[in-house]
């Protein structure tokens, strides 16, 4: 199953490579990985999407917890949560397709953030599935470039990951 794991770690040199190294050394999947400092400069927050059986996910969380730089982590799937990913997509939009692309962007609540005679650049935010669906809806040959941020997530309600 797919899991989103959020990690608070010391904002130290090499912290990211410890996580990446752990995944490659132990043969775990990483579907996406995002990292940035938090409001507390000494901490970074990493969001990692991985897949595996329950046993594998249990090992992953245990092994992550063993990393000395990891302060705390949370498997988002232990409770209700919100996941978001942002995509910037550059699409050929000339002639007849121009209107069609605009309409699709509207349907997906995307925003056109850059325009030229023949091109729209659109920002779409949502779950990974929604972004997949948007990419699927655009004619493949019209897609020039896709940039995705990787998934981030946050628990609903009182549940929170903080020190």
């Amino acid at each position, binding site marked *: 199953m797919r899991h989103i794991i959020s990690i608070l770690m010391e904002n130290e*040199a090499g912290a990211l490579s410890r996580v990446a190294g752990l995944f490659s050394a132990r043969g775990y999947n990483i579907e996406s990985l995002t990292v*940035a400092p938090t409001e507390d400069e000494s901490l970074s927050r990493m969001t990692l999407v991985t897949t595996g059986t329950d046993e594998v996910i249990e090992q992953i969380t245990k092994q992550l917890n063993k990393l000395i730089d990891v302060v705390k982590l949370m498997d988002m799937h232990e409770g209700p949560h919100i996941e978001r990913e942002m995509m910037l997509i550059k699409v050929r939009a000339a002639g007849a397709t121009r209107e069609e692309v605009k309409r699709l962007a509207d349907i997906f609540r995307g925003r056109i953030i850059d325009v030229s005679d023949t091109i729209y650049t659109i920002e779409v935010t949502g779950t990974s599935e929604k972004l997949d669906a948007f990419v699927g809806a655009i004619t493949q040959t019209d897609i020039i470039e896709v940039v995705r941020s990787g998934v981030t997530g946050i628990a609903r309600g009182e549940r929170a990951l903080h020190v």
Partner: protein
Amino acid sequence: MPDIRAFFLVIGFAVTRETKQVELTGAEIFVRSLVEQGIDYVFGYPGGAVLPIYDALYQQDELEHVLVRHEQAATHAADGYARSTGRPGVVLVTSGPGATNAVTGIATAYMDSIPMVVFTGQVPTALIGNDAFQEVDSVGITRPCVKHNFLVKDVNDLAVTIRKAFYVAMTGRPGPVVVDIPKDVAAARAEFHYPKRISMRSYSPVTKGHPRQIKKAIDLMLTAKRPMLYTGGGVILANASSQLTELTKLLGYPLTNTLMGLGAFPATHKQNLGMLGMHGTYEANMGMHHCDVLIAIGARFDDRVTGNIDKFCPTASVIHVDIDPASISKNVKVDVPIVGPVDQVLKEMLKVLKESKQKPDAAAQKAWWKQIEEWRAMDCLKYDRDSELIKPQYVLETLYDVTGGKAFVTSDVGQHQMWAAQFYKFDKPNRWINSGGLGTMGFGLPAAMGVQIAHPKETVACITGEGSIQMCIQELSTCKQYGLPLKVINLNNGCLGMVRQWQQFFYDGRYAMSYMESLPDFVKLAEAYGHVGMQITKPEDVEPALKEAFGMKDRLVFMDFLTDKKENVYPMIPAGAGQNEMILV
């Protein structure tokens, strides 16, 4: 992605008490910190990047530096020191090749969870990343085989980083920690504060097992009809041998040790069925296979122990005590997990057990022991005692007798290692020193140096083969320099025996590169290094030679035993087989 290096801040620990303030160089801070930490020996080898540190070492007399002949040996020696004392081993090497040479020893310590702090010199901070002379990314290279590592970029962080390094190395599940010190950091000055205690918000090892789980475990143990205690190196690392011994005797249950756990419970005690696993005893492996309650303590269900995991302990409920939660249910699903320090958990278990009204099922135990004695009667370690050739097993049995079972024994890797584990009966912990997890040939001799340095009055034997000993043979020179009276027991079968055994069994006798041609004359070699050499070729000479060698209290004696080239290690669980599918002699 933002550059998280930009936020290189030493945050996340709290200094609770400070020592007095003095301005010192980084190199002096290094020395002072080790002294404050209670370190007495550093095993190392100098080079450009650590010259400031060696200069500081030269000008003091509280720390003793042991000069090895290869950095791999420095790490193994520190490791042997740590395994035989329970105190952390300390290593100092230079940047680049010094650091890479140390990697094998770091990985060896990592696999066996040995507390060790390795200081590597680094090129000056301004040159890091420039492919400078003797630069390697030591932190990057060692990352997968350390518990943690640090690059110290500011001399003001040095003392606290050293404190953290020892804290991390020694607590929780121990392991090696690398501290990379650039040359300019060693030369720069700062005030010296060595924190007495330290806490890190990102690292807080468990200090107690969960009482409810402990109670549950005891209840399950007491209902067992066919119980089995399976204990590993974790018991020795936790210094919990006395608690384990008391618990085992109180329960009256059979016990087996892993290769790493030998000595945690007396080998000569009748409840001890010997080692389990690939070359374990028939009774231990059969006991495992047929048990209904498995009590695993400080052991990690390694593949050399379990054999085919699908066939492992098919009828057992499993209790597992371990300091490392990641070891629990990693390979084998556990019914009663207990995360905690083994000594603490065993103390609690003893308390609960003593208070419990329930007692082990006596009738069931009687039947179980009857079955075990039948397995034991197979005498799975038997060998040809009438051979005209020296049997390696005979050398080890005689070694045991001649040393009264009291020696510290280190080993290299191969058949000789397995025979040593089978035939030298360890009644005490910390005396059997071998590379179990990584299986590092070359470990034995330098590890023995570390043991002898830590225990100058004790008898230290290194059991090796003519293959392994040549991987760190240069250390005979170190032994001479420091007057280490080791006894090297070279079981010379003229081949890489363990490799040859596998080729015989599984590759139809195609002995690819498992022979040893052009062996040195070990007697002359020992003499060239300033030691005593002996060659023993006949079984009847084995005992007198051992007696003579062990009588030479102040000399290193290299004993070259020419043993039966065809002898194999039995019993054996072949790859893919279950513990009940052993090959017997």
